[in-house]
């Protein structure tokens, strides 16, 4: 099948708009998520570009404080709930999970489509709140500010987050069931690709964490809309309870935003080192360990919020323990690289960039988990730089890495490798230039969420804005490269990277609407068996 250029595949077998909007095909849903989150990413980026521009000078020049507050809120809400959370799970996870498991679809395809509609509904509500005047609560919606004092359509935005939360819950539920019940014959747990393990751990957090923020958003809406005051101090309510409930989800959510990235990196590092991954079981189980421990560290966001000092100490110690499974992963990736025949492809550049940047993000996390240091650094640019190293340097890099890696599988085309490399290196440089100065700013005491600052910090702010410009340029090159590639010849072939994994060895590029022409049976010795060339060498094997 693969030599026939006009072969039927999931992209061309039906082409009406209706066939897309009512599709239950996990691959098409993945592509729909991809388009949607790119729109959200662009919106979030423009907000960031605007306030970065404002921060060029110490005084308020182009934005007043209210607009500034609305812009960073919009940036946070859009980027976290509508880009980072769905970035890898909903796009790559949806597309790849059934392919990797050797099945025809996820367990509940209609639910999967419903999740996309919920996601879009939530997104429209959040954007509607922005268009109708914006909100200035910050993405954290802290009470009593959000419930009582903030202007704008907090109810609408919170409801958007609530609805999107259910999209996330249902996607997670779908994935967990699919991984448990839909594996191809012979594909046991310890032969699964590590991407699947990462998705599994992520999905568990989605199912168990997200409902808590959903009910918290309901309480915010009730308090703001009906005046019933669960968090209202005037009635004896405790705003800190909101912080507990919020971070009970939102800290595990940080792992929703990074664990799938770990999965992508494991695939890419193994493929381009041409080696079996080092310490497979440890990488697999460390994902579960992170998901588990991640539920017990939320208190490190409340070190200065009147939490008792003993609770703070416990949360501090627990937060340190997350570093252990995370370090296990990093060491194993580096050990996989060691002695491998490394190919410097675009996905590999992103993967190596990920390791470096995530290391900085992770280690500065340990600073912030340290009680006394956090008192100094809390709510400063140090925190901003830390989570951007994890979220952008980590997850966005992993998303880009995965997108480049599976692009030929998704669309059957290869992008211009040179242009993609230019984009990758530009994004790496731009990212560091944007956020490294913010570590220094934060250490010197620049608080986050302010639009003016003392003059002596201007140099660092100008550097940061310059970096954001480079970053914007890099993303532009990336978008153009990928967009142009779609119009090229669909000649990527079934397995351009000579990778293992059912999506490469058993499915066409782009895959058939039913994924496999013949249901795969798994006979491999173990995952990432790159020593066994017969697995991936048969280019054009009849499916």
């Amino acid at each position, binding site marked *: 099948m693969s030599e026939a250029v006009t072969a039927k595949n999931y992209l061309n077998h039906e082409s009406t708009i209706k066939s897309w909007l009512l599709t239950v095909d996990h691959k098409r849903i993945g592509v729909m998520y991809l388009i949607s989150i790119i729109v959200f990413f662009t919106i979030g980026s423009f907000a960031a570009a605007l306030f970065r521009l404002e921060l060029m000078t110490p005084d308020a020049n182009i934005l007043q404080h209210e607009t500034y507050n609305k812009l960073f809120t919009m940036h946070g809400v859009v980027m976290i709930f509508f880009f980072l959370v769905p970035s890898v799970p909903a796009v790559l996870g949806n597309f790849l999970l059934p392919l990797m498991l050797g099945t025809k679809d996820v367990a509940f395809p209609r639910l999967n489509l419903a999740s996309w509609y919920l996601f879009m509904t939530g997104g429209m509500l959040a954007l509607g709140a922005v268009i109708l005047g914006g909100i200035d609560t910050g993405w954290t919606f802290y009470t009593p500010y959000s419930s009582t004092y903030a202007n704008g359509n907090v109810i609408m935005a919170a409801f958007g987050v609530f609805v999107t939360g259910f999209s996330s819950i249902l996607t997670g539920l779908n994935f967990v069931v699919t991984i448990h019940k839909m594996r191809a014959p012979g594909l046991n747990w310890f032969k699964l690709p590590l991407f699947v393990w990462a998705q599994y751990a992520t999905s568990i957090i989605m*199912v168990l964490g997200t409902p808590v923020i959903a009910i918290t958003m309901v309480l915010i809406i009730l308090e703001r809309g009906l005046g019933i005051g669960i968090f209202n101090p005037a009635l004896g309510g405790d705003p800190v309870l909101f912080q507990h409930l919020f971070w009970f989800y939102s800290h595990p959510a940080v792992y929703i935003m990074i664990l799938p990235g770990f999965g992508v990196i494991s695939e890419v590092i193994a493929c381009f080192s041409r080696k079996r991954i080092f310490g497979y079981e440890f990488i697999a189980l460390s994902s579960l360990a992170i998901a588990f421990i991640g539920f017990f560290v939320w208190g490190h966001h409340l070190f200065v919020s009147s939490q008792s000092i003993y609770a703070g100490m416990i949360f501090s110690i627990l937060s340190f323990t997350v570093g252990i499974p995370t370090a296990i992963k990093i060491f194993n990736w580096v050990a996989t690289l060691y002695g491998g025949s490394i190919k410097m492809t675009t996905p590999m550049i992103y993967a190596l960039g990920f390791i470096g940047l995530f290391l900085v993000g992770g280690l500065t996390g340990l600073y912030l988990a340290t009680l006394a240091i956090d008192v100094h650094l809390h709510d400063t640019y140090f925190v901003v730089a830390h989570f951007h190293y994890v979220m952008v340097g980590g997850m966005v890099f992993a998303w880009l890495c995965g997108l480049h890696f599976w692009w030929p599988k998704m669309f059957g085309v290869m992008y211009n490798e040179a242009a993609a490399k230019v984009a990758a290196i530009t994004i790496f440089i731009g990212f560091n230039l944007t956020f490294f100065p913010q570590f220094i700013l934060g250490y010197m005491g620049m608080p986050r969420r302010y639009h003016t600052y003392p003059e002596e910090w201007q140099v660092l702010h100008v550097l940061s804005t310059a970096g954001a410009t480079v970053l914007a340029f890099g993303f532009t090159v990336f978008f153009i490269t990928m967009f142009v590639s779609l119009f090229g010849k669909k000649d990527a072939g079934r397995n351009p990277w000579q990778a293992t994994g059912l999506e490469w060895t058993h499915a066409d590029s782009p895959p058939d609407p039913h994924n496999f022409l013949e*249901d795969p049976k798994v006979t491999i010795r173990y995952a990432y068996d790159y020593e066994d060339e017969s697995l991936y060498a048969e280019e054009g094997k009849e499916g």
Partner: protein
Amino acid sequence: MSHENTDAPPYQQHFFENMQQQNQATMFGIWLFMAQEILFFGGLFGAYTWYRINYPEAYEAGSSWLDPKLGLLNTVVLIASSLTVVFSVHAARQGRKNGIILWLVATLILGGVFMGIKTVEYGAKYDHSLIPGKIFPENPFNWHGTKEQVEAAGHADHSTGLKYYDKASEGTKGNIKPGAWASDTYVKKTQVAEPKGIQIYYCLYFAMTGMHALHMIIGAGIIIWICILAHRGRFNKEYYPHVEYFGLYWHFVDIVWIFLFPLLYLI
């Protein structure tokens, strides 16, 4: 293993290998859904616990206005509705279409009775001015003491509803202008000091029972849907997942109430 699984029954989805896989997957999905429901209500139970530790007196005073008899009656009604759901699943297992519909309608009626009693209870809260927030601006939250205190003060007049405020004061409830309740003279006669956190207790009462009621309303919608499906003959002895999974959902909603009843009414 082939695409063309000609032996597959019509209700088997094409992406499942066989009915066993389909049944296991959907059952697992329902249980995961329950898990997220537990966490969803968990946020409310967490808030309940947090404030109970902070304001134990408010919880005690507040719950004095809840009627344990009505709560108990509702508990019995709900447990009975769980039983009828079980009968409906049993009928489905035997392939009796009319049995499914009959017992589900019985469940619907019992659910309606529960909601009716709940409405009476909510109405009493309105009469007692115990609804927090700005939902009823003409009748804002106004604490008069626990039920025992009010009854001991002799202001309760059951013949005309519970008008426990001083009848000698200016007018009756009906012609007090909004906001007038806060005037000094009126407050002195009618209001006692509000225990700290009492409004929080009622916020939680309405949020928890309201969220539970919302789940029952959703359940009622599902009942009607399943009855239509059953009427159209969609189920048979081997295939009745909707009935079975709805049963699990309904039991879950019952269990939430089994926790709400003692937490709000009894302790």
